């Protein structure tokens, strides 16, 4: 069991999402930075899809009511256990009664707390993710609040954790070749042109050329971008069609919206581009006010990025297993 001592609005329980129900209008939800959730879960010995806590408003504090393995991944910023700073991207053990605190990270947006055994909230339609729009899943369909107590699943590997913890090189560092760091503060985000790109004529090129700023009217559903408005050469009334996270739609005002984890499942605005899935975690870690530029990509490049991420995750999975097995054998 854990108890939430302090939480800002919109901190939620998330796993890797609830795919498969878009055809009845149910958004997939899931972590905004799924890579951070996968790594956190591997570190604490969980299934990669176990439910974790997504913290996007700070400070956040929880108390462990039992001895628990946990890992804090995602945004840049060090967690703090009973007043001492801990390494992020590292599995640690907490004793009953200890308090974990997360402060506002310096640059990035979202921190994840993976717990040994995962958060044991009911599975609704195949997932433990909170659907804020639908008001179901996760912690009774709502954000975490002070006083909430949440049960943990069975922690199989608690005895196998090295005393000093078990850390990984975070993806932004380990994968810097395939996820180039922001240049002059502008985050590159790879996307493919989408269905109505051609309708934007010259403004289509302006879309790729200019720097967009993430507006304050952005949340888990979508990022609204500010910049020089772009408009199609003809107004189109699209028939409603399915959409996925990453789609970049252009409403009549001309400022694009990128659909994120709580994406609408259908849309009708013209689509200028679609962000490749592997770059979505970087958007999920970009904060209001951050700048980005879309980089025209290809299916082949998307596959290259996917393979590199898969290798990185596989390597962590294999190595952490090996380390834990070796320690157990020595014990």
């Amino acid at each position, binding site marked *: 069991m854990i108890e939430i001592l302090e939480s800002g609005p919109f901190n939620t329980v998330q796993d890797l999402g609830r795919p498969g129900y878009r055809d*009845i*209008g149910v958004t997939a939800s899931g972590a905004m930075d799924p890579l951070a959730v996968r790594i956190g879960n591997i570190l604490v010995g969980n299934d990669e899809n176990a439910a974790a806590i997504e913290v996007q408003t700070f400070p956040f504090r929880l108390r462990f009511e039992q001895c628990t393995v946990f890992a804090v991944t995602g945004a840049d910023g060090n967690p703090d256990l009973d007043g001492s700073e801990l390494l992020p991207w590292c599995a640690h053990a907490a004793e009953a009664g200890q308090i974990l605190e997360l402060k506002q990270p310096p640059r990035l947006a979202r921190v994840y707390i993976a717990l040994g055994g995962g958060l044991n909230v009911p599975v609704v339609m195949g997932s433990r993710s909170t*659907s804020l729009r639908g008001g179901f899943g996760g912690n009774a369909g709502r954000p975490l609040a002070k006083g909430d107590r949440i049960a943990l699943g069975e922690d199989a590997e608690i005895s196998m954790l090295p005393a000093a913890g078990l850390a990984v090189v975070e993806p932004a560092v380990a994968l810097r070749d395939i996820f180039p760091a922001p240049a002059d503060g502008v985050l590159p985000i790879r996307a493919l042109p989408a269905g109505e790109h*051609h309708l934007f004529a010259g403004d289509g090129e302006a879309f790729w050329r200019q720097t967009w700023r993430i507006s304050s009217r952005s949340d888990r559903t979508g990022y609204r971008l500010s910049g020089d408005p772009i408009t199609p050469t003809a107004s189109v*009334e699209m*028939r*409603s069609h399915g*959409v996925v996270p990453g789609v970049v739609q252009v409403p009549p005002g001309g400022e694009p919206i990128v659909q994120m984890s709580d994406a609408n499942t259908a849309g009708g605005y013209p*689509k200028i581009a679609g962000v490749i899935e592997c770059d979505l975690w970087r958007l999920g870690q970009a904060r209001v006010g951050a700048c980005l530029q879309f980089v025209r990509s290809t299916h082949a490049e998307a596959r290259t990025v*996917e393979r590199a991420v898969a290798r990185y995750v596989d390597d962590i999975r294999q190595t952490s297993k090996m380390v834990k097995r070796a320690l157990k054998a020595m014990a």
Partner: protein
Amino acid sequence: MIVTTNRHASQRQIVAATKSRPRVSSIGAKAFLLEAPGEFDLAAQRRIWALSRSVKGWADLAEDIPGMTNLLVIFKETPEDPDAVVARLLQAWENAQSIDLKGKIIEIPVHYGGEHASDLPALCDLSGLSDREVVRIHHQATYRVFAVGSAPGFGYLHGLDPRIYMPRKTVPSLKMAKGCVTIGGMQTGVAMLTGPNGWNSIGFAALEMFDPNSPTPAMMAPGDTVYFLPARIEL
């Protein structure tokens, strides 16, 4: 079949060679949208339903989402050869027989007018009809659920009388109530969530149409027939 790709290799823009060719475009790397050619009608939708049924047999398919005379197909992996995927989708469309989903009949009592009918005056202005006429035309039609999406359980209904067509709003209502009976272009439906909504509200229905804990969470399914019953008219 003529498949043309744009000069940019990544564009994947399939240009319809004739009016009868569907258009296939991509959203990101794993999702492909096939849009049926021609009219927005039941015949096109029946073929979309048939296409949906046939792609469900594909081993590499993750999800498919029927829309209004279109189908979004999401693959498990990013395809190595997107052109081959496009060709496969076009072939499946060619082979798709029209199927009619029989569906059930759903009757929705509506309180037309009143506080939730915020866009009824604008619709009267646009159509040149009286509010009474707009309401009568709306509840006398027979609607079919073409697709479910946008919000949990939200059914896109086809069958709107063109006299009460009204385009989506340029600036959405920020907090439209769950239950509002709305018109968006040639589509109508009942809002499933309270929140921003670009459609035009003409009334209110109190029926619960989604339960996440049910084995069949959404009341409406493609193919269902919907009647709006004027439970109350307040003009």
